[in-house]
């Protein structure tokens, strides 16, 4: 049997595996009366892990701060465990990003908010890299939910900082606002419509789709290379013909699989970072909306 004959079946199986399925019945459909989908399940696993990590680290920090206050020695504040230092570095990274992007005055307030996005996506993405695991960012539902939270917050910040009317006014550049009445009507309306679509539709849509597409496409690529390896190495798959050529193709696929895996680890991090920094940028544009 030619290995290539089995490929469409494999791909279909892969796409099916990656689609949203009820967790308790993997063969069912979305519309089935399931309680938990496969993505939700792994999202909850990631959530529990994240909460556990941060609870442990924060309790450790609290204990050492208390100890330092008690003994009055600054040596208690020195970094001790690698794991804690790693989490601290992550938190500092988020705080520096918030201060850098939003500004030193408003930035620190949003650290926890941005950190929630970052660590939730990051931990979940790493779970998605475990074979059999999923990241909730691999389903469009999960990323849309996050993007909607981002939209809600940056629009709300815009209203709170500039007022309801002021925020919509700020969508039109100040140069246009100083034009004559006709110019304002013509160009202003045009730009307003464009900016409105860009702010309220394109921003959340791209946030959601970027994250989803990167994760989904990444997992498809990994799955395809894995399927190729399995198909061309008949040791793994019964009843398939094999030759020197097919062994070579399987080996090359395996090498690419490993390389792509490494790249996906990088993508898992970079997408969490991009989602967070874009949310920060959108919040910044709302905070300073009246200035441009």
């Amino acid at each position: 049997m030619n290995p290539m004959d089995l490929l469409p079946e494999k791909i279909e199986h892969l796409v099916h595996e990656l689609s949203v399925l009820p967790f308790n019945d993997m063969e069912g459909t979305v519309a089935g009366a399931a309680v938990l989908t496969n993505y939700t399940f792994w999202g909850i696993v990631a959530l529990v892990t994240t909460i556990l990590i941060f609870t442990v680290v924060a309790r450790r920090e609290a204990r050492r701060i208390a100890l330092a206050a008690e003994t009055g020695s600054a040596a208690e504040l020195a970094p001790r465990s690698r794991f804690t230092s790693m989490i601290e570095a992550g938190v500092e990274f988020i705080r520096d990003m918030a201060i850098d992007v939003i500004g030193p005055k408003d930035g620190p307030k949003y650290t926890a908010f941005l950190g929630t996005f970052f660590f939730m996506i990051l931990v979940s993405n790493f779970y998605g890299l475990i074979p059999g695991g999923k990241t909730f960012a691999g389903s469009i539902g999960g990323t849309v939910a996050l993007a909607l939270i981002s939209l809600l917050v940056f629009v709300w910040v815009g209203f709170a900082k500039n007022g309801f009317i002021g925020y919509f006014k700020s969508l039109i550049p100040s140069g246009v606002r100083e034009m004559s009445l006709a110019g304002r009507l013509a160009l202003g309306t045009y730009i307003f419509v464009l900016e409105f679509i860009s702010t309220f539709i394109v921003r959340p849509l791209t946030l959601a789709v970027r994250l989803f597409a990167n994760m989904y496409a990444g997992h498809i690529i990994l799955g395809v290379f894995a399927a190729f390896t399995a198909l061309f190495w008949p040791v793994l798959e019964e009843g398939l013909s094999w030759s020197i050529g097919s062994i070579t193709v399987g080996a090359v696929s395996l090498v690419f699989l490993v390389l792509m895996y490494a790249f996906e680890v990088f993508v898992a991090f970079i997408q969490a970072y991009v989602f967070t920094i874009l949310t920060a940028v959108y919040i910044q544009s709302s905070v300073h909306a009246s200035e441009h």
Partner: protein
Amino acid sequence: MFIEFAYAAEQAAEHGEEAAEGLAGTLGAVYPNPADIWPTWVAFLILFFVLYKFAFPMIVGMLDKRAAAIKESLEKAEDTRVEAERLLEEYKKQVAEARAEAGKIVDQGRKVAESMKEEIIAKANEESTQIVAKAREAVEAEKKAALAELQASIADVSVAVAGKLLGETLSAEDHAKLIDRYIAEVGSLNDN
């Protein structure tokens, strides 16, 4: 979570079997499934609550406290360094001063000794000259006294001799003149 599944099921029923297949098929990948949206919101809120209320304040507090402690100890170290440098400078100055002082004292001592020596020598010289002068004076006085005595005795002797020789021929006036002349002669002799 039951709600959105009920919603999805309802939709599927509304659009028939085909729609349900469409959702799970091609559209499935980009159709936001409500079954994923609600749990994600709940998860986000829970995580946000934990991070905002508990974890981040602790960790950020730790970072800030550590930064403050490091800054403080660095400043303290800088202060200590400056103080140490100042002290070192001071001690160096003191040592230099002490050395200069000692040198001065030695110089002074030498000078004093020098001057003392000179003084002693000068005193000794003076004393010796004084002694010599005194001795000379004494010798002079002795000599004068001896001369005067000699004069007196010579005059007496010569008067007696002359009186014997001339008898009563000489008047008292001539006698005095003669003595004076003789004394002058003797004095001139003495001058030579």
